[in-house]
């Protein structure tokens, strides 16, 4: 047979889809194929075609009794995942630790800012600051805008766990939809450049908010997950 057969398939991505399902690709090629499944519906259909058709080969693999504790291990892993999920709202709303810290929270935020100024991450002339509180009133983040308004540093003021979620920072000018300022880190301070178009909107009228989003950030350009903290910008 001529090479035309394979070339035709190659053009449509059919060959890669078949190779992916067959399992002959290396790790890097596999990741590339998986990304393509996410963005190329025709390619995803090819993968589905081959999975359905070649799947019949799996019938020839004899079943093997799984380990006796197989289900118990899965249940234990699910329980661990549950606890991790519950810990998130718990941290904000219920933990006795937080009740104890309640009075200290504004001090905590102030201390954060003082530290930032001290270590030089935020200039002492920062004109605008915001404390982003969770629903419970606890400080979640502290944000400081640079004097020119061109960048913004956001610092987690408490321990946060987002598991596999990303945290995205939003600027919400009065009466407007949120504008994304990018992803932030629950573990360390992040400095974000403010896009030029948003510079005029970074003022004491605006609100900053943090939402939980899928890895990589909101797919829609608007917050899709819960807002875990928000606060108004204010002049120092």
């Amino acid at each position, binding site marked *: *047979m001529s090479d035309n*057969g*394979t070339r*035709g*398939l190659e053009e449509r991505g*059919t*060959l890669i889809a*078949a*190779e992916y*399902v*067959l*399992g*002959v*690709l*290396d*790790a890097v090629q*596999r990741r590339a194929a998986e990304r393509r499944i996410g963005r190329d519906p025709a390619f995803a259909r090819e993968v*589905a075609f081959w*999975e*359905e*058709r*070649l*799947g*019949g*080969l*799996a*019938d*020839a*693999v*004899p*079943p*093997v*009794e*799984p*380990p006796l504790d*197989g*289900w118990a*291990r*899965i249940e234990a*892993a*699910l329980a661990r*995942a549950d606890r991790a999920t519950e810990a998130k709202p718990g941290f904000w709303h219920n933990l006795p630790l937080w009740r104890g810290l309640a009075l200290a929270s504004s001090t905590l935020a102030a201390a954060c800012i003082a530290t930032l100024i001290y270590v030089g991450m935020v200039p002492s002339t920062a004109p605008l600051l915001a404390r982003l509180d969770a629903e419970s009133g606890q400080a979640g983040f502290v944000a400081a805008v640079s004097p020119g308004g061109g960048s913004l540093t956001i610092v987690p003021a408490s321990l946060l766990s987002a598991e596999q979620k990303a945290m995205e920072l939003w600027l919400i000018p009065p009466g407007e939809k949120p504008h994304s300022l990018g992803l932030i880190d629950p573990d360390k301070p992040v400095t974000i450049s403010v896009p030029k178009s948003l510079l005029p909107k970074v003022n004491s009228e605006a609100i900053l908010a943090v939402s939980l989003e899928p890895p990589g950030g909101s797919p829609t350009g608007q917050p899709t997950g819960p807002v875990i903290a928000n606060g108004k910008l204010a002049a120092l």
Partner: protein
Amino acid sequence: MSLTFTGASGMDADARRKQLSAALYRVARGDRPALRLVYDMTSAKLFGICLRILNDRSEAEDVLQDVYLTVWRKAASFDEARASPITWLVAIARNRAIDRLRSGGVLRLSEPIEAADAVTDPAPTAAETLEVAQEHKRLKSCLDELEGRTSASIRAAFMDGLTYEELAERSGVPLGTMKSWIRRGLAKLRACLER
């Protein structure tokens, strides 16, 4: 004993397929007993697949756990109209096992492809659904139209999760030759399956 999807269970195979689909839809809504049901119906089949690819019991046990956690998280993406439930589950199991294999650290015994091929044609299982049986028959007849070495390589790749390099080494042919065999074989297979 846990049941395999195609195993003789006393239940009509089509009913099993429906039951499995329904269970996956319940899993998608966070129903844990439904996940247990999926596990009971399919774990022996999926464990066999993982073990075949990884050739290491402890690795296969880890991957099996990972497979059902993935099912728990991804059940919402299962769509009966697009894939049969067992195809969907087999794809997850194979992908997880192959990813584990590619991440390195799993030692593999090198065996000639003929040996792998020898177990690809067991006696047909008693309660295979007519539909699955027919699809399998079609696949088998299309594979049989290929050259023997090509169909053996395609089967070995699928069952054992081998890369082109490993397939070439096992068959004692240059990498380019193996790629060419398989790619042409896949092109022919595609044309045959679409007929």
